[in-house]
């Protein structure tokens, strides 16, 4: 009869039929009672989950995913690998401090593409976070890269005008199948983009660099500009690549036929006798900017070429990833640790003043008769309900040099008219205003804990001979400590994440880490650093929140008393 105990809540007569003695108990529909109950429990769970699901989904999309996005952005570093794919690949094979010609050639192609797509300035901005000067370097060389190899291109076209014709290049390099589809596309004239350029097998094998350079040009021309490669003269890079290919493989012409073969033969001879000059991208880059010849530039590129980086986090704690591993930033650039410390210290001070001011009020409210306490509670709840901006504007108005508080102090003769107190745009202003804003969050939990302390304890202590102070300090105060803990953690959590009030009354000395995060999101656009700073702050808050949960429990969060 063990099963019968499960059916505790069910009315015996209706819900369950008694089966033969010793057999399983059956429900009204003849299924075993155990299975029937299990099914109903499962159904209950499903119903509960179905009711919760819409909200859970909503919060996941509107809130949890954004936070996840922030965590992702704090380590994400696609921009170098995306903007300079060839350089990153070439750098992997070249461990020297200042890399050789292949890396510079890859860099020239990448930079030319980036300039056409206007992404090199973004890359410069990103790398400038890590090493100042990168932005101007990339902008400057970005201007020069188009002109690189100009003399090679002149020499080649001087040899034979046909090299100026886009058609010559297409005839030399294109895959016949692509020529076919391109012709069909041109005939259709339906405004769709030109089919992506494809190189022939012979060209890919014998003129590899030329094909690579031409592909880059073709991609930009077709995909970004929406033009046809049959109408555009290729970049200087393609001429340099062609000359290089023929220098490396003078007999490349044999793989081609007709006009192509004749032109390549002529060009090959010109390359061999020096009519077409040999150029070095490395020299051209160094000529554009000496920084390209320095190991520092390349170590920055190398360090930040990976797709994920700890760089933002290091930056957020005043470290940086140098060529020799992690190192401290320059003393003048060290601002974040100081800001974190200031945020923590100010939050502690604000929490402390909240305890100091909140404790007497909570004590008074908890020990007054109900009616009076409810009335006085309004004085706590009205500020609690009043808009944060209203309270901040009030303080901004009151604390000004020509504001009400200074006026009263002058009128009372406490300070002279000439030296009115600076109460705003500094730490004092932030502490005064934020204590006012957070005080209700201290008073309310303290009050609810103090309400639960039996008055008889203090009376008992006094009847046993304790004086007022001993009775309070040894008996009452220890019982109110959980309230202080709850209120303090609440105030502290709220304080370290504050943005609006420090921004408006804090000046430069009274701002918090939040203000820096906001600055990086909307002004400096260094989103990665903003995300890293935010993640660190979030981790601190989560830790405190966990402590709060252990101490008070989230279920006990009380709103408005």
């Amino acid at each position, binding site marked *: 009869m063990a099963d019968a105990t499960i059916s505790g809540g069910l009315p015996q007569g209706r819900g369950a039929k008694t089966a033969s003695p010793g057999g399983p108990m059956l429900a009204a529909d003849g299924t075993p009672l155990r299975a029937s109950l299990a099914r109903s429990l499962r159904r209950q769970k499903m119903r509960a989950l179905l009711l919760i699901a819409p909200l859970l989904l909503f919060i996941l999309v*509107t809130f949890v995913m954004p936070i996840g996005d922030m965590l992702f952005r704090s380590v994400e570093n696609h921009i170098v690998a995306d903007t300079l794919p060839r350089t990153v690949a070439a750098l992997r094979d070249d461990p020297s401090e200042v890399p050789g010609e292949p890396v510079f050639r890859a860099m020239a192609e990448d930079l030319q593409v980036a300039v056409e797509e206007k992404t090199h300035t973004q890359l410069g901005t990103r790398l400038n976070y890590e090493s100042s000067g990168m932005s101007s370097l990339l902008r400057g060389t970005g201007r020069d890269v188009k002109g690189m190899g100009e003399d090679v291109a002149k020499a080649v076209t001087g040899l034979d005008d046909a090299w100026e014709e886009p058609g010559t290049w297409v005839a030399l390099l294109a895959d016949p199948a692509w020529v076919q589809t391109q012709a069909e596309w041109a005939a259709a004239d339906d405004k769709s983009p030109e089919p992506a350029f494809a190189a022939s097998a012979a060209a890919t094998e014998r003129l590899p660099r030329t094909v690579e350079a031409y592909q880059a040009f073709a991609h930009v021309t077709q995909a970004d500009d929406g033009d046809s490669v049959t109408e555009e003269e290729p970049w200087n890079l393609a001429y340099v690549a062609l000359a290089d290919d023929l220098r490396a493989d003078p007999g490349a012409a044999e793989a081609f036929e007709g006009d192509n073969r004749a032109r390549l033969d002529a060009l090959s001879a010109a390359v061999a006798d020096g009519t077409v000059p040999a150029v070095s991208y490395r020299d051209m880059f160094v000529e554009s900017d000496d920084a390209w010849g320095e190991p520092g530039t390349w170590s920055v590129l190398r360090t930040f070429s990976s797709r994920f980086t700890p760089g933002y986090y290091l930056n957020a704690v005043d470290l940086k990833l140098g060529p020799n591993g992690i190192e401290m930033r320059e003393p003048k650039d060290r601002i974040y640790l100081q800001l974190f410390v200031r945020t923590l210290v100010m939050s502690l001070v604000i929490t402390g003043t909240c305890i100091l001011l909140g404790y007497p009020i909570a004590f008074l409210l908890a020990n007054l008769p109900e009616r009076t306490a409810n009335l006085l509670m309004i004085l706590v709840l009205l500020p609690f309900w009043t808009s944060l901006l209203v309270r901040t504007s009030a303080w901004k108005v009151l604390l000004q040099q020509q504001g009400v508080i200074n006026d009263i102090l002058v009128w009372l003769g406490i300070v002279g008219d000439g030296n009115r107190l600076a109460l705003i745009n500094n730490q004092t202003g932030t502490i005064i205003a934020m204590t006012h804003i957070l005080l209700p969050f201290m008073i309310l939990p303290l009050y609810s804990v103090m309400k639960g302390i039996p008055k008889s304890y203090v009376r008992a202590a006094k009847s046993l001979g304790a004086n007022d102070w001993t009775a309070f300090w040894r008996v009452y105060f220890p019982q109110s400590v959980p309230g202080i803990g709850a209120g303090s953690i609440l105030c502290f959590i709220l304080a370290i994440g504050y943005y609006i009030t420090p921004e408006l009354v804090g000046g430069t000395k009274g701002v918090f880490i939040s203000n820096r995060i906001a600055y990086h999101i909307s002004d400096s656009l260094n989103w990665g650093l903003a995300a890293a700073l935010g993640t660190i702050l979030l981790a601190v808050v989560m830790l405190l929140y966990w402590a709060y949960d252990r101490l008070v429990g989230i*279920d006990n969060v009380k709103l408005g008393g």
Partner: protein
Amino acid sequence: MALPVYASTGQRVWHYAFRVICGLIFFYLIAPILVIIPLSFNAQDFFTFTPEMLHLDPAGYSLKHYHDFFNNIDWQLPLWNSLKIAPMATLIAVALGTLAAVGLSQSHVPFKGAIMAILISPMIVPLIISAAGMYFFYSRIGLQGTYWGVVLAHAALGIPFVIITVTATLVGFDKSLTRAASSLGAGPLRTFWKVQMPLILPGVVSGALFAFITSFDEVVVVLFMGAAGQKTLPWQMFTGLREQISPTILAAAVVLIAVSIFMLAALEMIRRRNERLRGLTPA
């Protein structure tokens, strides 16, 4: 707390000193809000009391800042935006939040702790972090700078308040009432609307008030999420305070104080009604 007749002089002194201290703290709490009110009637564009005001000279007072607030498009547009965004965010938060709170109060909910933690998280995470994450994510999906982007963000911020208030009322809910309704033949929907809803209504209403005020007062998220077309009243006040502070802001502040007094009164009425009902029904 009354002073006993046998109290010593020291006790008397402390008794009154304590009251004076408490009075000063209450003054600190309430004075900034109260001072704003007369200042907003200043006839001059000053942020302090003019000599005329101190002499209670009627010439020192005027409604010009209110006039400006209610006629200037710079303030009216944000006011209307706030009034368009907050109710919609409240509606979403209350509808989804109440449903989920009912689900959470069932006796067998798997992963209850984890679900609760996720649902409460928008209240715990500092606003600047929520704002940063939402800004990054919503610009990816094209919601940044749109009305619905701001509404969804504000609804997410308001939901924890709805969950907390509604689950709190559901804790005291007598489940035999729904069983009675079912046994009398009411379907689940009918049971919810006719039996459960009227009983948890106070919790739902106070949750709605919290969600509304969360959206109505919120500035950090909207600052990042919104475009100029979604400028709300707190946003306008924030820009006003940061850039050129105009006395109209005092009028706006007093209007907002009126809103919060109304909210406080509404909540107090709900609380009183609850206490009365609790007094009538045997525990």
